């Protein structure tokens, strides 16, 4: 194969990849504006599905659940993950092999295995103690659990990228441990914390499998609602929900990207 045709082939693959990635999304977005009731043909532009969406109590409550779940779990995961990330940095010279594997395992663990085991765990605890009835609470715990490794990893890599002498300079310049945390570490890792928050947020909004297994009857999130609704067929209303989610995630992702570009050093 000549150099030129190789280059053409590669370019072709590139466009094909983009096509498979974004065409389905584009179709969903397009049909969410479809005036007709069918997914077969596009008859004209209309916002009626979005209006209908706004009147649908079920969707609105699913949306509220998704937001509460994403925000609360991200904040909690940020708090815990930040300490783990710092701990990993602080003790990086020790042999932490197994501990690190344990912390990172949720990243590679299949969601379905994780979801089922969380469910079984919560059910048992509920039966024994009466606490942790499946619902938003259990979902938040499950989400925090899988968000933590991402936060810890981001915070850790930010610390590793710093000159270790900075920590000593802070000590040397009269900062007590509490002041070091407040005036040196927090401001220094702030960009990392913000990207970690955005990532956790999108992971949570995205998640279906783990939410599905840990949800209660009242705590359906948007993905769970869509899953339920889709059994009756793909309605243009679902297209509208999907388009809104797409837009939300895209905005958060772009904001995160812009923010990480602007960060100094």
């Amino acid at each position, binding site marked *: 194969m000549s150099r030129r045709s190789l280059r053409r082939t590669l370019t072709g693959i590139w466009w094909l990849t983009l096509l498979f990635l974004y065409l389905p999304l584009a179709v969903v977005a397009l049909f969410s504006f479809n005036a007709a009731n069918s997914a077969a043909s596009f008859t004209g532009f209309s916002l009626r599905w979005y209006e209908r969406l706004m009147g649908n109590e079920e969707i609105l409550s699913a949306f509220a659940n998704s937001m509460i779940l994403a925000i609360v779990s991200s904040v909690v995961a940020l708090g815990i993950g930040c300490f783990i990330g710092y701990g990993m940095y602080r003790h990086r010279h020790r042999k932490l092999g197994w501990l690190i594997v344990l912390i990172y395992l949720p990243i590679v663990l299949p969601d379905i295995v994780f979801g089922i085991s969380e469910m079984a765990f919560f059910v048992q605890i509920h039966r024994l103690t009466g606490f942790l009835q499946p619902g938003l609470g259990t979902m938040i715990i499950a989400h925090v659990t899988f968000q933590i490794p991402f936060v810890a990893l981001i915070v850790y890599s930010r610390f590793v990228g*710093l*000159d270790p002498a*900075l920590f*000593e*300079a802070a*000590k*040397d*310049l*009269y900062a007590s441990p509490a002041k070091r945390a407040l005036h040196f570490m927090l401001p220094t890792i702030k960009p990392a914390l913000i990207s970690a928050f955005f990532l956790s947020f999108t992971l949570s909004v995205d998640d279906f499998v783990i939410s599905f297994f840990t949800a209660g009857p009242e705590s359906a999130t948007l993905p769970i609602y869509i899953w339920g609704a889709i059994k009756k067929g793909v309605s243009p209303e679902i297209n509208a929900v999907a388009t809104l989610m797409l837009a939300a995630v895209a905005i958060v992702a772009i904001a995160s990207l812009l923010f990480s570009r602007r960060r*100094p050093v």
Partner: protein
Amino acid sequence: MSDSLTADAKDENPAAATGRSAPSREASSIALQGLHKRFGRDTVALAGVDLAIEPGEFFTLLGPSGCGKTTLLRILAGLEEADRGRLQIGGRDVTEVPPHRRSVNTVFQSYALFPHLSVRDNLAFGLKMQGLAVAEREARVARIAEFIQLGDLIDRRVDQLSGGQRQRIALARALVCEPDVLLLDEPLSALDAGLRSQLQVELLRVQKRLGMTFVFVTHDQQEAMVMSDRIAVLNGGLIQQVGPPRDVYERPVNAFVARFMGHDNLYPVTARDGDTLTTPLGQLHVEQAGDGALLLIRPETLDLLPGDVGGPITCRLAWSSASTAAAMPNIAWRSVTSRCRPRSATADAIFPRSMSESPWRWRPTTSSPWQSEEGTWLIPTGSPPLAVRPWCASLATC
């Protein structure tokens, strides 16, 4: 108290700097007793260090990498804890005082400027942590910026600064806290030669004006010679010799110090009869010989004498580095190589007589009848073997 910096900065007379009004800002002495430090099981960083540093001294810890000098500095800063031994600063035992409660500040080798803060906030960091009011902080930052002549650097971001600028900011950030002792960990090692000598002068100016105790770590003997009031040469976690630069240079106590101070002309003394030593160079008559088994010849004590040279020779010319020698009493050496003409070459022909009478000396190296493993010395034929003028006492082997 806080005015001392301004007063000193405005007063060109260094004597005024030492006559400070506030007793709490008197320069502090440092006393180390039996400091031991070990990393892991096998790495001994300090193997029993005793040292007394005078108030207001520019004191240099000199040694090769891994000799323990940085560990010693870190113990002074409180960033490392000694396994054994005591440490006093200004007469107060601070062995167990954490770094943020010591009136000691450090200029780090990597400068360690906070990337999330502007230059101004970097300078104010230490004052803020000490709980000073905003107005006081701003006044002191402005004063130090004037003193170190930071100019418009003060409003820059840290990532907009060059290496030399960062170095000066790091110095200002440590000085603005007005510590009892300032520690400098190879602060100039990352800079190019020109900037380096400029900052050496700057550091000395600051130290003399403030009369503060400076402890300076370097592996560069020339830098140590130029800057220091006294030098401690370290090797293997032990202090080999402490003294003024000239002493350490001229009278090294052992072969390690001699080599480290730039002398490679060490010759074993195979036999001696009073002041006459038998060496690979031949029989030499010396004054004030010590008891050791090594002969050290300092290059600047050698003269090449007129006479006929039997072949092509390469001369290495060594001289005091003019710029620093003019400002400092200490010696700094540099060398160039120049080719001499064969056959007819004599000292008089190569260099005008006036030059040999200047403080410049030169030492020749080439293949010659007298060749040793350590270095070769050209001895012009038909002249007395070697004119060794007052020379360093012979050394104990080590």
